[in-house]
């Protein structure tokens, strides 16, 4: 059964008198527990598709249904509430809040949930241990390496136990060994916790960790390849 269903998914932007269409009528089905890698050249619409799936952008046309919820029909506030429950976002540049410690960064999404301080603490500990960075809980982002920052960002993404993890070039700013570690971590989240992962990448090596790779060009899906 499809977990994410995109039909004729289109996103247009106006730039002056010109209309730019980074995503043009995409039909896509993603089943629960998939680890989908999206590849394609710059401007092909990968990040636009990722943002729509993450609920941080809304389609101009078409429908996007995730686990029975049509995101295109949700208001700004309802979309925010939906994101807090269902999506964990991993950014290329980590985007940790610089004045907060690793622990406090992971706590940020949990503050929106009805959890006691103790429950939040337990969840943060679990998330930090899962990404192997619990010993750096009291460190600020500036005191961490790129790989460690990305681990904290992943911990923040999984702290609320979301169904979907979206990752926008999660290894794009990392060295080879850190990139390998982060990809292994995402693969573990997919295989052991059953998280559905949608990842944008430029690096063909990272697609080896995915269960499925799709290519986009000029806003359209051009190729679909299943990986064993």
């Amino acid at each position: 059964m499809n977990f994410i269903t995109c039909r004729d998914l289109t996103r247009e932007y106006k730039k002056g008198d010109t209309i730019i269409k980074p995503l043009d009528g995409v039909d896509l089905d993603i089943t629960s527990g998939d680890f989908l890698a999206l590849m394609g050249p710059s401007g092909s619409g990968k990040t636009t598709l990722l943002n729509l799936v993450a609920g941080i952008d809304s389609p101009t046309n078409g429908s996007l249904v995730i686990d029975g919820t049509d995101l295109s029909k949700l208001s700004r506030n309802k979309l925010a509430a939906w994101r807090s429950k269902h999506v964990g976002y991993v950014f290329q540049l980590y985007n940790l809040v610089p004045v907060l410690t690793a622990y406090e960064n992971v706590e940020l999404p949990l503050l929106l949930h009805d959890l006691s301080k103790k429950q939040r603490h337990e969840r943060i500990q679990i998330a930090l241990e899962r990404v192997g960075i619990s010993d750096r809980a009291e460190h600020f982002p500036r005191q961490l390496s790129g790989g460690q920052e990305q681990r904290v960002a992943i911990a923040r993404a999984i702290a609320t136990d979301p169904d979907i993890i979206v990752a926008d070039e999660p290894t794009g700013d990392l060295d080879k060994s850190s990139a390998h570690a982060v990809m292994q971590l995402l693969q573990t989240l997919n295989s052991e916790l059953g998280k559905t992962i949608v990842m944008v990448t430029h690096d063909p090596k990272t697609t080896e960790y995915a269960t499925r790779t799709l290519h986009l060009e000029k806003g359209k899906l051009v190729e679909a390849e299943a990986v064993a």
Partner: protein
Amino acid sequence: MKIIRCFPYVTKQITRHRVRSLLTVFGIAIAMFLFTSVQAMNDGVLEATTATASDTTLVVYREDRYCPATSQLPQDYQRRIEGIDGVSSVTPMMVVVSNCRTSLDVVTFRGVPKESFLSGAGKGIEVISGSAEDWLSRTDAALLGETLANRRGLKPGMRFDAAGITATVAGIVRSDNPQDQNVAYTALEFVQLAGRDRLGIVTQFNVKVTDSALLDPVADEIDEMFRTAQEPTATFGEKAFIGRLADDIIELVGFARWLGLGCLAAVLALVANSIVLGVQSRIAEHAVLQTLGYKSWVIAVLIIAEGVLLCAIGGLLGAVVALSVARSGNYALSVEGTSIPIVADYGLLLMGLVVCVVIGVIAGLVPAWQASRRSIVECFRAV
């Protein structure tokens, strides 16, 4: 109330951007110190010059005279004034000041008939240290207003010199009337004889009437009575009299109010600038919060809360310092024997805090609205 749980995020933004926060708070504190000080002077002017329904005192002065050195009235006017219907008591006063000009430290001697003063014109006066008996029994004894005593560090038993008069402190007094707080009450004859022989001459009469509604008719009757006398009189309600003598101070304080409003504008600009810069430097951060599920209005409230907190800290600091300076200095603006106290009470502190909170909200509104309406994707593209 999930948003309450998010407030530590606000305090961390302030405490961990230490330099920015300290500079902003320091600027707010300076501006609020000035605003609170101006407001304290303004409150003093209002307290000293605003007539109330309970006022029953008239001041009889020499017509066309504006200072105690030139207002000279025969003391025997007292008997004739006492004969007017509605007059309950008449207190002749000789006023001698250490400095005729406007100053923060003027000693004003008021010579009064001791035997009748405390039960008449000085009825509302409370002796808080020393004793009224000492004052009554000694010729050179003075009862000092609390403000004057504190400012000069005088205590019962001490002797002091001012305006060419040497007196002994018999007691310290407290009164609701600001004029009593900054004077030295002595025997009328003692002041009349001090330096030069002016027996039988007084500066003014303080006339109590039985009902405040009688103030104007009695004032008219007194002035009519002495219209053709060698020393004609001009009679005013006590607050109006103070307003007349202290009009220079009132004008200056009125102008200073504009400076106070300027201080508030400076606080607004400072906080708004700080918030705008903070929001601009945190565009990606706010986009991340929204990505995590923070609703637009929550982002707006967090931004406004940051402005309010900065304003409250700075405002409280400035107001507390202003209050401490005003209280420890016991300042009063004096001119021509009248006194405009600088009124620094906790109401002023509260007002300063409330004003700051309102400014914090106003300063944060526009940047908060802008930050909360931004598209998440646009924010990530912008950085």
